[in-house]
C-alpha cells in the first residue's frame, strides 16, 4: 500500500527555459520523499517542450541554490535556472 504523502511544488522557469516550455511556472504534485531531481524528471516527462531542458539544470529552492539531491517539501518553490549570465 502506498503511504507516501503527496507534495505540491511550484516550479518556476526563467529566460531560455521559459521559452522552451512556453510558460513561466507550473504546479507539480509528487509523492514524498522527493528531491529536486525528482521534480525535474516529473517536469521533463509531463510538460510539452520540457524534454529540451537539461537533465541536470541549475536549481534553486525557496530562493537559494540547491543540489538536485536536496529534498523538497510541500509548498516549496523550485526554480530551474539557465546558466547565470548577470552583470
Amino acid at each position: 500500500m502506498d503511504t507516501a504523502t503527496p507534495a505540491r511544488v511550484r516550479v518556476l522557469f526563467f529566460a531560455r527555459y521559459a521559452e522552451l516550455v512556453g510558460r513561466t511556472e507550473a504546479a507539480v504534485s509528487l509523492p514524498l520523499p522527493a528531491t529536486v531531481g525528482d521534480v525535474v524528471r516529473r517536469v521533463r516527462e509531463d510538460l510539452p517542450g520540457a524534454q529540451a531542458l537539461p537533465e541536470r539544470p541549475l536549481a534553486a529552492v525557496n530562493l537559494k541554490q540547491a543540489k538536485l539531491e536536496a529534498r523538497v517539501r510541500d509548498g516549496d518553490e523550485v526554480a530551474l535556472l539557465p546558466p547565470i549570465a548577470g552583470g
Partner: protein
Amino acid sequence: MTYLTRIPISLDALVADVASPACGGTCVFLGTVRNGPDEHGVTAIEYSAYEEMVEAELGRLLADARGRWPEARIAVRHRLGTIPVGEASIAIAAAAPHRAQAFEACRYVIEGVKQRIPVWKKERRVDGTEVWVDPSGRPTVRPSDHPSHV
C-alpha cells in the same frame, strides 16, 4: 532593500550611498553593454532575472563581503529590461578606509554576481535576431532553438 532598477543607474546616488568620512578610498565598477568585434552587431541586451532570488542572493553576497571587509561600505544596482550598447547594466561602489580594501571588496562583489546572481541576458542584434548569452560571454546558438537564422 532593492538592488534592481529598470531605469538608468545613477552613479552619483550609488556613490552617495557608500560615502563616509571614515572612508578614504572608493572603488566603482561599471558593467556596460558591449558591441565589440566578437559581438555581431549587438544593439542592446535584454536583461531578465529571478527578481526575488536576486534580492535574497545579493543580500547574502554583500553580507559575505562585509564579513571579509568589515569597514567597507558597499552598494550595488543591477538594471533590468532592455539596455542599449554603452549603458550600464550593473554598478558597484565600495568605500573603505584605504584603497586596497575598496578595490578588493568591489572585485569580490562583481565576481560573486557573475557566479551567483540569477540574471540572464538576450542580445538584440542589428539584423533583428535575438540570442541568449551563455556565462562565458559567447552566445548560445543551437540550430533547433533558432530555426529562423540557421
